[in-house]
């Protein structure tokens, strides 16, 4: 069973993504902020981290290195946000995010993406 960590303020988007991950057969842990997520990533072995909102990556305090040890492919980092501008999406991908998914989401596609096999690298 894949372990998924969902990061975001408690609310409808987080509950919705958590339900989609559960439908995909994943074990889900939800946290409120990135600091908690970084601490949980150090302790636990998550396969995927889903961050709701792109703001945590733009204030300069959080880097992908805090969630994923340098040189490793795991956990995969997905970001779900409302931005659709090419610059923002490219910025996130260059930052190390594996996938950017824009709201409004297609729940079935989201379910497939979260439940997809983990990329193990070459």
């Amino acid at each position, binding site marked *: 069973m894949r372990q998924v960590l969902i990061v975001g303020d408690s609310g409808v988007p987080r509950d919705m993504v958590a339900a989609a991950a559960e439908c995909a057969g994943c074990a889900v842990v939800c946290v409120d902020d990135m600091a908690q997520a970084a601490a949980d990533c150090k302790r636990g072995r998550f396969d995927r981290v889903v961050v709701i909102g792109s703001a945590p990556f733009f204030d*300069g305090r959080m880097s992908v290195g805090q969630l994923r040890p340098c040189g490793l492919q795991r956990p995969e980092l997905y970001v779900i946000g409302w931005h659709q501008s090419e610059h923002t999406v490219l910025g996130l991908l260059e930052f190390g995010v594996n996938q950017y998914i824009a709201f409004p989401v297609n729940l079935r596609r989201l379910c497939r993406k979260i439940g997809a096999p983990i990329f193990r690298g070459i």
Partner: protein
Amino acid sequence: MMTVIYIVYSAVCFAVAAALLVVALHRACKARIAARSERLLAQRYVRMITALLISDEGAPMSRFAFCGRRGAKSVLARALASVSRSTCGDGCGVVRRIMAANGVEGWLLGRARRSRGYGRARYLSMLASLPVSVSTANFVGRYAGSRNRHIRFWAMMVRVVADPAAALYVLSTYPHRFTAYETAAITAVLRRGLLPLACYPLLTSPSHNLKALGLNIVRMFGMADAERFLMDIISDDADRDDVREAIFAVAAMHLPVTRGEIVARVRGMSLSERRSLCRRLACEGYSASVIMRLAANRDRHYMETLVASYKRSLVCCG
């Protein structure tokens, strides 16, 4: 005797104060428990709706648990509206069946009828997020002439969502100019794939509202292909608001802003509009030399400092 009266008086005061405190504490605890149970119920409903949307088997829907409870229908309506706003795809049928099984549409309509002002606008905005029937849209048509701009806008949105084929007509005949918030609300519906609107016909439309919507789409999706249409608006359009929005759209896509048409239009702008544009250009990362060509003489020093500050923050973030 006076001492006894004083003691009795103090005791009564103390008893009344203690009773009031107990009542207040009881009410606070009750409100807290109610808020918590509402939050848990909302969480439960969101999870149920999501699961149904993912595993749509076309089976008849049963009534949701606790839906008969006081306040539960409001929680369900909010959960349905929120999930619908954040999702796209072929889930309209499922949402429609959930609404029919739990009587959400009629309940929202009744609440909208009984409420006034912003309360009514709130219920109409929830209705506009859901796949409502044409009869509901016809019913809310009575609010189209409301004095409250939120009510008349959301009544129009209910009509747009109920009959997407007539969206273009309804939007173009709306008698008031859309605010930035209203344009964003329409774009959010458009992003869900509910409205059959193409961007370029909107940009060439004579209606100000449709043009504003088109410009918003161009800015949101960064459609560099629309440059030709934007330059047409900048050079030919008589409406100052449209021209200003078109110049902002050009800036949002980081296209050249020192062309003759744009410079001529910027010179005709008021000082505050010009300053606002220069601030936007600085924010978008345009160089100082470009901004200096568009800034008014008295603003040049301010713009130099502004650009320096933006550049410094960009370097620090990197």
